[in-house]
């Protein structure tokens, strides 16, 4: 779960990380928290709001009111601006980049520091990688003092003590809220010390079960701003992506799903959906997956279900498919490829329901592509 800047900064403030004075406007009619000058910042989850005109420096109140009205009208990426943060203008001498995250390949947490703050760090990483200092650390110890001193040196901070304190607080946010990323970019060097001018915090939804109160409150706040009703309770691990073709595709694995996309294209077809259910599923998951794909009609002209069960059980997959067909019908041509764990049982269930399945993936793909084209 990605937090809005203002949510991340509130978290920072709770942990004693210095942030500028600010106030949130939840709607264009909200009163200004303080008089201009100030900086008005669109609250969106997508990146690149600066380039998209989502940040305005305002010098007087009239200008501020106009800017607020304007910002609330904006769409950045696909996102309607959810709120506007009014923040004091801050004078600073340097902008740094500082972040904590995990290095998946090394399976260790990572402290990232760069003197090139205030710009897109991925760009820095591409064009000037030596400007970024990354240090892995022991997850049970946190970043150590000597590592912070090393970082301070690379940032050109003469007195490392203030950075030690800041990193210790960032680490507490990282560990105690089950964050996967805690990023400050830019971190400003001001006359009064270091100040977090922006926040980017990603929380690990896999840890929602043990951070229920905090995660729920943040999500409800987001829902209230966006009018959506996202939920922490994920019933399944399905990944659903809309594509431009006509063949609905469901698979029980990301790798096979991608292979199937490749095979569809090789066979001259185009997928309408990439819907992969993961390797630990159940009848309800495939039931819901079929529902999601069928909701894409009329785009979807045929449905291809590719199953190769390891932990997934083919009896359960058959159960879910047949239940969906009984409840809602499947009024496009259906091709099912079913092999793997308990395939004898699943195939028999399908056969009895008049649905014979394929063993062979390329054969199933070719048949589905043909059917999606309306060939008979």
């Amino acid at each position, binding site marked *: 779960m990605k937090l809005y800047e203002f949510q991340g900064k509130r978290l920072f403030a709770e942990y004693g990380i210095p942030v500028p004075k600010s106030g949130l406007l939840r709607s264009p009619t909200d009163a200004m928290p303080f008089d201009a000058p100030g900086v008005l910042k669109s609250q969106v989850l997508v990146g690149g709001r600066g380039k998209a005109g989502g940040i305005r420096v305002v010098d007087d109140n009239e200008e501020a009111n106009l800017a607020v009205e304007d910002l609330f009208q904006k769409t950045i990426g696909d996102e309607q601006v959810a709120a506007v943060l009014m923040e004091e203008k801050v004078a600073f001498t340097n902008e740094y980049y500082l972040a904590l995250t*995990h290095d*998946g*390949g090394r*399976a*260790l*947490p990572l402290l990232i520091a760069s003197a090139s703050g205030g710009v897109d760090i991925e760009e820095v990483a591409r064009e000037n990688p030596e400007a970024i200092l990354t240090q892995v650390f*022991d*997850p*049970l110890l946190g970043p150590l003092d000597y590592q912070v001193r090393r970082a301070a040196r690379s940032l050109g901070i003469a007195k490392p003590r203030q950075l030690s304190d800041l990193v210790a607080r960032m680490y507490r946010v990282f*560990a105690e809220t*089950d964050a*996967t990323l805690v990023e400050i970019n830019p971190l400003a060097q001001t006359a009064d010390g270091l100040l977090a001018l922006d926040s980017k915090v990603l929380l*690990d939804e*896999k*840890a929602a*079960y*043990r951070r229920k109160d905090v995660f729920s409150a943040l999500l409800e706040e987001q829902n209230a701003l966006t009018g959506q009703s996202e939920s922490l309770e994920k019933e399944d*691990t399905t*990944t659903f*992506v809309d*594509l*431009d073709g006509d063949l609905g595709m469901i*698979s*029980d*694995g*990301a*790798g*096979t*799903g*991608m*292979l199937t*996309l*490749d*095979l*569809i*294209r*090789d066979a001259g077809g185009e*997928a309408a959906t*990439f819907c*992969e259910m*993961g*390797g*630990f599923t159940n009848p309800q998951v495939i039931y819901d997956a079929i529902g999601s794909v069928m909701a894409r009609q009329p785009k979807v002209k045929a449905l291809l279900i590719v199953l*190769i*069960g*390891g*932990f997934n*059980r083919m009896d359960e997959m058959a159960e879910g498919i047949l239940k969906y067909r009984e409840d809602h019908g499947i009024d496009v041509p259906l091709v099912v490829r079913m*092999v*793997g*764990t308990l*395939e004898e049982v699943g195939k028999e269930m399908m056969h009895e329901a008049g649905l014979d399945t394929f063993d062979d*993936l*390329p054969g199933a793909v070719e048949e589905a592509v043909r059917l999606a084209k309306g060939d008979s």
Partner: protein
Amino acid sequence: MSILVNENTKVLVQGITGRSGSLQTKVMLEAGTKVVAGVTPGKAGESVHGVPVYDLIEDALEEHEVDAVISFVPAPFAKDAAIETFDSGIKLLVLTTEEIPDHDVVSLIGVARARGARIVGPGTPGLIAPGKCKMGAHPTRMFTEGKVGMVSKSGALSYEVGKSLTEAGIGQSTVVGLGGGPIWGLSQTEVLELFEEDPETDVIVMLGEIGGSMEEEAAAFIAENISKPVVAMIVGRAAPEGKSLGHAGAIIEGDRGTAQAKIAALEAAGAHTARIPADMVDIIRKVRGG
């Protein structure tokens, strides 16, 4: 020989009385795996498909030798259960559990390293040394004993390829599923190294996918360290840009993470590349013939 496990590996199942643990125990036993014991707290004295259940690993160790553990423990308890395994001196854990919080994954891998133990996973389909030992989800009939070593993040994709190879009469030494990430215990390069050292593996099959940089890192490693022929297949050639396709990192951003780039890197490292599983068969035959 095979890597990580062999016909003598004695396996303990953590979370054996659960739905998945119990079914997979049955399937592992049918595949000939020596499942000697199971653990589920509070279920001591029960038995699952003839396998005795204990409260603690130490109780099981009083009665059985154990070489490796496969865990089906739910995510909230997975970390402590993993450490119970390492503290018991067991050096291989196949951790099938998905959705373990990242902070727990990093901690438990740290403990494994400190204890000199290996973790396959988390979120792994496990591994199979066909005809010898199966620890995980690989459907038995899609694999057969032989000399191809295979490594893959994705479970299902390795079943697809295993099925094609097995149908073509090409057997495997060991097939290892690393898990979908974003954090891995056993890494792809560690598996490549094990295959390189395994005298009974003659060809290495590596299955990759778009996104991330694991395949590029593997390519660099192969160029330096692997003398055996490597046949790679990268899926996601037809994937759209900017959309995450399931696995952590399976996303193309601009010109980064494309199948083309990965294939080029692997070929530059001297690996052979296959477009689809059927190609694999031809390439392996050609490689062996030459």
